[in-house]
């Protein structure tokens, strides 16, 4: 039997229909599709796919279980190392991770590992199954986890599974980090995130929302007064960057974080049933080319914008967003302006009336190895838009660092932590995820959380021995 060179396509909502709703775009494999796709896997002995997975899921094993019609076994295999499979199956950049190393990728398309992971996780969730049982010991050491994004959630889950008492402190009113406030519903339904957090609750993890560490409590207070024996900081990269160009404070200019938070966390798309308004003009320019930019652009479209541009200063080859999202955005009619950089936001009566840009061309490679965009003299022009969303990156939020004694940060304000253990320069305090690496990915944040959980357990076992 010859193996098909292509992945089984993902059933999806029609682009014309989905551009007007917030329902999930990718509908998920059916049982038939999943079994057929699982059958494409060669079950390689060396399993090169595994080296591309930051949490080292036993990929061939779970795919074999799916092929044999044992999705429950498949999800058990995945969950041994990954607490958020339904999330990762949806948002991981698989083309740069496991699927990049798949032997089939050399001749045709890799096995759709991400879609299979999602299938197993969704099926397990829909079928309910047995609730996990908490093994948390009442006399176990206490760990404070600060921030409830993927890094914090994975530390919390792993430590609770080892019997430690864990409390997750979250500044916002819902746990989940970027998974809740950043990534839109149509890509990652909030119910999916909630369900995975509920599993952690059942494992005995406590959640304290509305707790801003650095303000409501400092890290030192948690350790010295509130009885915690160790702390993990996973506060992410939440500080939005602006461009520093003329007109950036006009009404109608948003950071992508604000735009997405209003929509996802505060449900502004339901205003006035929900209390939070949002402004979406008729024509929107989104500046940037990552996942954040794609999400903002597609959200604007769904909120009723007639025309949405992505303004990106390099070419389509350098777009950092996931391939699938770029593809989806194009299908939905987002207009990509490549090799274009903004110069100024134009205004009228205090509101955005346009975005003046200049065309770029790629010059010599810079430090990052990518060819540096340089301005084409005299090529400036003004895009006719009334909303501008800036998605050029985020930095570390300084709130925890500036209020924690004896913890080193680097020049950019990220926390300095050991790559293998997450240990910071302050004893008993660990850190991981975007707050250490700068804005990265869900799975890398989870990988950092996993390593830190091992190190924290060692630290606590050592400490209680003394």
């Amino acid at each position, binding site marked *: 039997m010859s193996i098909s060179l292509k992945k089984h396509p993902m059933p999806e909502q029609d682009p014309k229909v989905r551009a007007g709703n917030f329902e999930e775009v990718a509908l998920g494999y059916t049982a038939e599709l999943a079994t057929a796709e699982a059958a494409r896997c060669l079950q390689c002995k060396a399993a090169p796919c595994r080296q591309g997975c930051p949490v080292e899921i036993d990929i061939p094993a779970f795919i074999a279980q799916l092929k044999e019609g044992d999705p429950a076994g498949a999800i058990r295999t995945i969950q041994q190392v990954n607490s958020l499979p339904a999330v990762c199956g949806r948002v991981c950049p698989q083309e740069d991770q496991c699927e990049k190393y798949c032997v089939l990728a050399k001749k045709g398309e890799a096995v759709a590992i991400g879609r299979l992971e999602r299938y197993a996780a969704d099926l397990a969730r829909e079928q309910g199954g047995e609730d996990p049982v908490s093994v948390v010991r009442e006399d176990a050491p206490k760990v404070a986890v600060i921030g409830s994004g993927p890094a914090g959630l994975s530390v919390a889950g792993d430590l609770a599974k080892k019997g430690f008492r864990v409390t997750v402190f979250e500044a916002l*009113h819902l746990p989940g980090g970027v998974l809740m406030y950043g990534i839109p519903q149509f890509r990652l339904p909030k119910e999916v995130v909630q369900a995975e957090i509920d599993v952690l609750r059942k494992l005995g993890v406590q959640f304290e929302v509305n707790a801003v560490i650095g303000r409501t409590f400092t890290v030192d207070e948690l350790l010295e007064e509130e009885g915690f024996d160790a702390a993990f900081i996973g506060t992410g990269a939440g500080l939005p960057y602006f461009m520093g160009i003329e007109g950036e*404070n006009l*009404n109608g200019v948003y950071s992508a974080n*604000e735009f997405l*938070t209003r929509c996802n966390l505060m449900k502004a798309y339901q205003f006035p049933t929900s209390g939070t308004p949002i402004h979406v003009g008729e024509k929107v320019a989104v500046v940037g080319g990552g996942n954040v930019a794609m999400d903002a652009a597609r959200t604007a479209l769904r909120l009723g914008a007639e025309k949405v541009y992505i303004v990106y200063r390099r070419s389509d080859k350098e777009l950092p967003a996931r391939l699938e999202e770029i593809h989806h955005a194009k299908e939905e009619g987002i207009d990509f302006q490549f090799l274009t950089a903004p110069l100024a936001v134009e205004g009228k009566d205090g509101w955005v009336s346009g975005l003046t840009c200049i065309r770029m061309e790629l010059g010599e490679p810079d430090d990052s190895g990518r060819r540096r965009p340089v301005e084409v003299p005299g090529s400036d022009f003004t895009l006719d838009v009334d909303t501008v969303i800036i998605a050029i990156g985020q930095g570390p939020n300084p709130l925890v660092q500036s209020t924690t004694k004896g913890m080193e940060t680097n020049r950019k304000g990220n926390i300095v932590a050991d790559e293998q253990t997450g240990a910071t320069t302050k004893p008993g305090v660990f850190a991981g995820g975007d707050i250490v690496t700068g804005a990265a990915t869900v799975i890398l944040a989870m990988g950092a959380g996993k390593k830190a959980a091992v190190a924290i357990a060692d630290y606590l076992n050592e400490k209680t021995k003394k």
Partner: protein
Amino acid sequence: MYEILVKKELAPSVKLFEVAAPQIARKAQAGQFVILRVDAEGERVPLTIADFNRETGSITIIFQEVGASTKLLGQLEVGDALHDFVGPLGQPTHVENFGTVVCVGGGIGIAPVYPIARAMKEAGNKVISIIGARSKDILIYEEEMASVSDELIITTDDGTKGRKALVTEPLKELLDGSAPVNLVVAIGPVIMMKFVAETTRPYGVHTVASLNPIMVDGTGMCGGCRVAVGKENKFACVDGPEFDAHLVDFDNLMARQRMYKRQEKDHSDHCEGGSCKCQSH
């Protein structure tokens, strides 16, 4: 849950709540604020901490009913609870013995200036307070301000109480007087803070204003609260809310506060029209 322990009506559409929030009360300092949500679909509303009681573990907030969220808030009664209450947020006021401090409060801004005046007094300053309102019935916190001030000057736009003047008039007289003024703290409508800044500018007296841009998270994550201060953009929720008033671009702040005017109005009309499904009234 954050229970409402005390409710008072200070003036028509100006209400005071004491809310049970021991963790916040333990840490609160003058100049900081909280963010609350009335219910699960509610907006995140920032309000200054008007007072705090570490013993009873309560936070006092004073708010004016201006739009849908604050009106809904005003309908809550003692025993009801707020869905979310987070804080204390923002930088505390920088308090030390400066000498003579003039605290200027306008309208609802008198409430947040009160804990600052009290802290300044406790730090050994001579505190002169100027409080102003449009009219006598909406003048709040007179007794409280009197109790922490060496001198209290009242102004109303219509002359129904105190001097018929804007707060900047007695302020200018103080600046012209023989006794030195070392610091001016102003909280009130943006236009008032702007004119206080213009009044003190020629005298070179350091002036601090507490800004109230539109906020979402209050933790430095959304950038929605950015204000132009000097040549820089600052996030009011984490860098402020207090800034050097001589450097603030008040006109931009006023423009940005109006961002959702139209939507807010539609929302209020929609609620008052009785067709509102969004809230329980």
